[in-house]
Every structure is written in structure tokens, then in C-alpha cells.
């Protein structure tokens, strides 16, 4: 829901840190004091306290979603008719909803569902935008123009409306939701990848590869995309945030995940009606959602600072 990054605000410094295949240094070894690239990144990342806090919170959330179900005898779809709309207590840790479903079990399952959707969509989106963005920049000419026109068109069209329209018919199934969110979510990242790739295509190692007769597809996959590594990793984490936001919005309106399945968005929608009479129905999913997005943003910002030495001045533009 942020502003798409415009090409001129993309930090050029991201390129400087990513060594090309030609400049690949040995990861360890010839000198005792030499610091490997990975260890340098880890050290920089650990210096950032908010980023470390983000990782800890995120790990706890992942553990909670994976193993939280072991600590309760209830299943998210079980209805306990002896306890309808019960406040949090010893029997039901997070209380129960109007149908007698245990909110703790639902929260575990909903968080798991939302996490799986968000991570999958983000990985797919980044993969698509890397190939399309770098490919368009490298091939240039008509392909580039057509891709950019398509991207601009899709950015202007209210994609949320199209999403709602398409998922209304197909949804209920979270796997379909993943597909739909990917198809309508690749544009802004692609635009950033494209704008950065336009300078990569002029690099010497790309020229060298061309002179050696390497085919275009291989140049893109083997020489351009690896050098976008840091940018792609940062966009991966921030993509998770934006996917969680759109998934919860869609599910909230009833166009995303649908009953009997549960996600954070459907739980928010359930709790919205009883916000004064049964606040726990809303408070727990809301808290989990915000913890998830905030921790993911902290991790993303920490990664950007760790991978990009020039970004300490906050030079990065948009955050999506």
C-alpha cells in the first residue's frame, strides 16, 4: 500500500556490494584476517538491534505457527458448544468465538496459513520480477517497451478490484489465492528490477559474456540476476509484508481465504463485529498480524543496511 519505488530513488549502492561472477572472491582462506562476505553481512546485520529483534520475533512466530497446535487439545475447526464466546481463561487460552471455536487453535492455524501464503507469493513474485525485469532490460527494444507499458497499465488499474473479482469466483482455496496474488502482484518489483538492470546490462562482464557467445537467456540468468541478489533478498522480505497486508484485506472482505479455512484476515473479520463485546476475538489476530509485518519490515531494513554500505544515510527510496 506504499508508493512504488521510482527508478531514480533506487539505491545504486546495492550494485556496488554485489560482486559479479568475474569479481568473485574466494569466500575464505588465503589470509587469516580476511573476512568472508557472508560473515561481513552477518556482522553488520547483528549490529542493527531492531533487525535482530525482528529476527527473534519472526522466529517465535514461525515456531508458534508450526508447533503451537501441540499445546492445545483443540483443533481450529472443533466447536466447543459448552463454551460459546468465552473470554480467555485456563481452558481456552485465547477464549472462544461465537461458534465455540478455540481462538488459540484458530490463531495458530490462521498464522500458519497467512505465513505460507505470504512467503510463497513473495518468492514467486520475486522470481517472476527478476526474470521479467532483467530480461526486459537486457533484451531492450520492443520487448522492453511492451513490458513497461504493461507494467504501467497494471499499476494504474485498481488491481485490488480485479483481485477481488477473480478470487470471488475461484477462492476459498488458498492455493488459488497464491496464484491470483502472484499474477497481480509482480509489477512494482519488476519495475525496480528493470530500472536497476538497465545499468547492469552495460557492465563489462555482460559484454565479455556476449563476446564469448553466451545466449541471452543464460546471460540474464547467470550474469545479471545474481548481481541483483541483495535487491531481490530485500524485496523478498518486504514482499512478505505487502502480501500479508493484501491477503488480510481480501480475506477481511470475504474474497480471500473462506470458511471453513481460517487465516488472519478471516479472524479479523470475525472479530470486527464484536469489537466492544468480545474484544479478544479481534485483539489476538490483530496483534499477531502487526507483529508479523513489523518484524518482517525490521528484518528487511536490517538486510538492506547489511547488504548495502551506502544505505546508512537512509538513501533508500520506497520500502516496497
Amino acid at each position: 500500500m506504499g508508493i512504488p519505488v521510482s527508478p531514480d530513488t533506487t539505491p545504486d549502492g546495492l550494485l556496488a556490494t554485489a560482486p559479479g561472477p568475474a569479481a568473485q572472491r574466494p569466500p575464505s582462506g588465503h589470509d587469516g584476517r580476511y573476512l568472508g562476505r557472508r560473515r561481513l553481512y552477518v556482522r553488520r546485520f547483528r549490529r542493527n538491534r531492531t533487525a535482530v529483534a525482528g529476527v527473534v520475533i519472526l522466529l517465535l512466530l514461525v515456531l508458534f505457527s508450526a508447533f503451537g497446535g501441540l499445546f492445545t487439545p483443540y483443533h481450529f475447526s472443533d466447536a466447543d458448544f459448552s463454551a460459546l464466546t468465552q473470554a480467555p481463561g485456563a481452558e481456552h487460552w485465547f477464549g472462544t468465538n461465537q461458534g465455540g471455536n478455540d481462538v488459540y487453535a484458530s490463531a495458530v492455524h490462521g498464522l500458519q496459513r497467512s505465513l505460507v501464503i505470504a512467503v510463497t507469493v513473495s518468492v514467486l513474485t520475486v522470481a517472476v520480477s527478476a526474470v521479467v525485469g532483467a530480461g526486459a532490460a537486457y533484451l531492450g527494444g520492443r520487448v522492453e517497451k511492451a513490458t513497461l507499458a504493461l507494467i504501467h497499465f497494471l499499476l494504474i488499474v485498481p488491481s485490488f478490484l480485479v483481485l477481488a473479482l477473480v478470487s470471488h469466483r475461484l477462492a476459498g482455496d488458498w492455493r488459488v489465492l497464491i496464484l491470483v496474488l502472484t499474477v497481480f502482484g509482480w509489477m512494482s518489483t519488476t519495475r525496480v528490477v528493470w530500472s536497476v538492470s538497465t545499468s547492469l546490462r552495460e557492465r563489462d562482464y555482460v559484454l565479455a559474456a556476449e563476446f564469448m557467445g553466451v545466449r541471452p537467456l543464460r546471460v540474464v540468468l547467470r550474469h545479471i540476476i545474481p548481481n541483483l541478489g541483495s535487491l531481490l533478498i530485500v524485496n523478498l522480505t518486504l514482499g512478505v509484508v505487502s502480501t500479508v497486508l493484501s491477503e488480510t484485506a481480501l480475506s477481511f472482505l470475504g474474497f480471500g481465504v473462506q470458511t471453513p479455512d481460517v487465516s488472519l484476515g478471516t479472524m479479523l473479520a470475525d472479530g470486527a463485529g464484536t469489537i466492544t463485546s468480545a474484544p479478544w476475538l479481534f485483539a489476538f489476530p490483530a496483534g499477531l498480524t502487526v507483529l508479523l509485518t513489523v518484524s518482517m519490515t525490521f528484518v528487511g531494513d536490517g538486510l538492506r543496511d547489511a547488504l548495502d554500505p551506502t544505505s546508512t544515510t537512509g538513501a533508500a527510496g520506497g520500502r516496497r
Partner: protein
Amino acid sequence: MLRYVTRRAAGWFLVIAVATNATYFLASSFLDPRSNFKELRPVRTDEQISRALAPYNLDPHEPLLHRWWDWLTGVVLRFDWGRSPVGVEVNGEIGYRSLVSAQLVIGATVLSVVVGVALAVHTASRQYGWRDRAAQALSMALFNVPVSIAALALVLLAIRLNEQAGWHFLYVAGEKSPDVEGFWATLGDRLAHLILPTLTLTLTGYVGYHLTQRSLLLDVIGSDFVRTARATGLTRAQAIRRHALRTALIPTAQSVAFSIPAVFTGAVLTETIFGWNGMGQYFIQTINKNDVHGTVATAAFAAALTAIGAILADITTVLLDPRVRVS
């Protein structure tokens, strides 16, 4: 300048036209008005359903291209956006609703830009001061709050405040009170209802402007022309406002257009939560009722809002950027 703006406006009009027609085909293939009849008893035959839908240009046995052409000529020649599967005119529904939604979206966008840019100017000139850090932390936190959660949190807060004050001054439902008369009373009542939804959208919308504008400003604050401006005797604040900000505003102005779809998405959520009879709420209703024409009209409305934002952004760019004015 006029030629530049007209050319851009024509381009945007084309985009709206293409987008609206594309939505028509999408909506026709994904929404099936026939399924509305499934619940009815006695069970309707296929032929009966077709006969019921035919007067509204929704008969699935009619080729899609024919239906599209009828719809398109209706829109272009008579500005008639068609009818719902039960025969309600879309025009009658959207007239009032579009005004309600437009004031929400435009108000929130303008407020977001103003608040975001003002905060950016304030914090960028005090980089790493405590105010900068506090604003940064607040924006980071707000950036991650989904609109639905922000809206409901505000509702809860408003109810508490109303109870504390013992006076119902914050409205959490509806876009107007039913029993208010007179021009000034109506205006005040509307504005009072606008407060919370606009606040929701502004709180979630200003963040992008604050963060990008701050970094854009920091990029130019150290440049030579700002130092030159100071050397002519301007104070630091004046130099930033008159010279640095002017350059740094151009990318922001351009990004306003791209952010309007997101604001509209937020409006769909806020209208649902605050119970407004606006376009966002209408969109959800029409999708659930398989109302092809209503859905397309909403999409056209959203595209038009985006285009208005884009044209305003273009005009701002022309005013800010002498390079555009000359060419």
C-alpha cells in the same frame, strides 16, 4: 504547458477506456448472474433465467461481443452504465455514492501528501535528532498496520472517547445522520462523519510520503545549489523550503497517481467498517450479487480517480520542473 497537460490527459483517458473495457470482459467471465437464480424455488429453467436476464443485457446465451457492444454504446452515447440483474439502474446507485467516496479518497490523499511532506521537511532538516527518530519509528510502525486493524482500533478509541466525554461527537457508523436539515447543519454533520474514515486512510497513507520525501530531501540538502541559496542570505529553513524541496517534490508528485489505487483499496475497507454507502461498499455488494454492470462502473470510477490524481500530478510537475515547461 497547456499542450503538455492536454496530451497527458488524453493518454490517461485512453488508459481508463482500455481498463474499463478489460474489466467488462473480466467481470462477464467471472461473474455469473445465472447463479442468483439457483436458490429460488420453484427451480427456474435455463430458458426462464435467460428471459429474466435478457432485458438487462445480461443473457448468457447472447454472444459476449454483442452484449459488450450494447453496453459500450449505452455508456458512450447516453452515459447509461446498464442495470443490475434485478433491473436496478446503475446510474442511480453510483451518482450519490461516487460523491461520498470521492470526498473520502481525495480528502485522504491530499491530507496524506500534506502531512507526509510537512513531516519530511521537518525531520529531514533535523536528521538523526530525536524528533526525526521518533517520527521515523512512528511511521515504520504505522506502515505495517493493515487498514482494517487501524480502522477498528480507531473505532474502539472513538467509542471510549465518546463515553469519557459523555457527548457523541465522533461518529463510527454511516456517512450522515438521517435527521439533519439545513445547509450548514448538513455540512457540519457530513464533516463530523468524515473525521474517522479520513483519519484512518491518512494514518496509513501518509507514511509512504514521509519516508520517500525525507530520503529525497536528504539527497538534495547537501547539494551545491542549496548552499548557493544560503550564500544569497536565505536562512537554512528558507533554502530548504524554496530550493531543496522544489526539486525533491517532483518524484513525489509523480508517485501520487500510483498511490491512489491503494487509497481506494483502503476506502473499500473503511467504507465496510464504518458502514458508508460509498463506491467501495457498492463494489462488494455488486460482486456478491453477480452484478456485472455495477462492478464495471466501480472499476471505471476507481480508474477515473487515478487519472484525476495523475493529471493533477502532471500539472504540479509542470509548475515545479522548468525542464518540462520549456520542452
